[in-house]
């Protein structure tokens, strides 16, 4: 079973990896975007960990709803509302249970990812974060666990390289968007990797 602490560790691990990888995310957002994805998410996840420390929500759902709200309020851009919705809707779907099973979480995450697809209108193959998130949920659904989900997300992100973007800024470039890995899919893979880290109990402690 996964408790509030597990989800807190997830957020902290993600904040740490986003911090570490911010320059790479911004660099990926440069040839096919506007060079802000890394600093956007860094600002957002710093706010998330600060809020979690301050408010210390005690259910998995509350942790994710708070994290999602923080992202919406601090990130901006396309990724803020999308990631914010992902966490908020996942958290809402978890209800107010003190602990949730991996299966419950997987179902909730599916709800969150669906909400992102509805909000942004992107489908798999459009070269967005969806291309990392959907394979991850599918892996969890197949009972393969967090580690496999992280691998699936990572592969999904890499598989965006040959795609032509159909959503977000990269779509303005038409065929010139081909050959570049999508920054949002890359950060989504970090998010899923954070899940694995939290599961392994290796997430950095809250600062």
């Amino acid at each position: 079973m996964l408790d509030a602490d597990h989800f807190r560790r997830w957020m902290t691990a993600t904040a740490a990896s986003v911090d570490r990888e911010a320059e790479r995310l911004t660099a990926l957002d440069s040839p096919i975007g506007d060079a802000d994805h890394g600093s956007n998410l860094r600002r957002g996840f710093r706010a998330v960990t600060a809020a979690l420390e301050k408010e210390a929500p005690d259910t998995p759902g509350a942790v994710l709803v708070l994290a999602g709200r923080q992202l919406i309020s601090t990130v901006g851009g396309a990724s803020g509302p999308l990631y914010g919705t992902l966490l908020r809707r996942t958290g809402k779907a978890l209800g107010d249970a003190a602990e949730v099973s991996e299966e419950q979480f997987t179902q909730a995450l599916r709800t969150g990812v669906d909400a992102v697809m509805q909000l942004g209108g992107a489908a798999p193959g459009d070269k967005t974060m969806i291309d990392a998130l959907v394979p991850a949920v599918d892996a969890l659904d197949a009972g393969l666990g967090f580690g496999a989900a992280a691998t699936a997300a990572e592969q999904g992100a890499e598989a965006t390289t040959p795609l032509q973007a159909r959503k977000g800024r990269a779509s303005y470039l038409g065929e010139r968007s081909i050959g570049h890995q999508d920054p949002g899919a890359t950060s989504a893979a970090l998010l899923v990797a954070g899940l694995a880290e939290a599961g392994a109990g290796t997430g950095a402690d809250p600062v």
Partner: protein
Amino acid sequence: MRMLINVAETVVADALRGMAAAHPELTVDVENRVIVRRDAPVAGKVGLVSGGGSGHEPLHGGFVGPGMLSAACPGEVFTSPVPDQMVRAAAAVDSGAGVLFVVKNYTGDVLNFDMAAELAEDEGIQIAKVLVDDDVAVTDSLYTAGRRGTGATLFVEKIAGAAAEEGQPLERVEALARQVNENARSFGVALSACTTPAKGSPTFDLPPGDLELGVGIHGEPGRERRAMMTSGEIADFAVHAILDDMTPRNPVLVLVNGMGATPLLELYGFNAEVQRILVERGVAVARTLVGNYVTSLDMAGASVTLCQIDEELLRLWDAPVRTPGLRWGM
């Protein structure tokens, strides 16, 4: 890095402090990142709120004031602001007559303004929205996020702002804003990339002898790279791209807009070429504006926006306006 900044993280807050000092006629809330005209809310007047990523100054904060925006929400550089800013702005300017959100068509802006609209309506504020999507360089199809909002934003904000100032009701202000957008088209060209504070180096590599055709205002590359062209050739390309998409029957407003680092001397020369083509194509010009209005940090280059107008729109364009970035008649 050749930026006049302290550190990347404080660029927007620093700029807002500097705006506050220079413009006592505006209320600049540095902490919450909202710029509001000092006399808001004006009784019976529709509020006009816009916003977007920073780095396009004077857009939007420089267009706050009588006759134009009631408030603006600056995001981080090239990053749409967050809903909290927009809700706060709407609350600050709503007199009960409702608020129009002017939203440039980018995924981030659309999503954040949508969320803000929901939240503001929850607080009892009547919200209308108009999307600006004038950039003909982007194919408007299922395969893109749709056309970008660029130069036409200035026309929408000025004309809707004048209508709101006259006391016209929300539906009418919204309809006018939509009419302006539907009749406006833009095309942009970059002679250099720009450098964002967060990245600290140019957003893309452009050898000095090349240019990018069909760029937006966020330092993104354009649709096509070519070897350097003359001002006349660039004007031909840009104006024809616009006229291929719209055949103005009425006179047009012309905006020859600098991206930031192109000298005004060159912009005026470019305007001469734009006007030559409009004469050749039989398009009548009502008014022309030349300058840096919708910029992309220190990008070199320019964009052309044409907006077909009728008598009412021209009257509203000519109406007095008093903002840091656009001012006449008062």
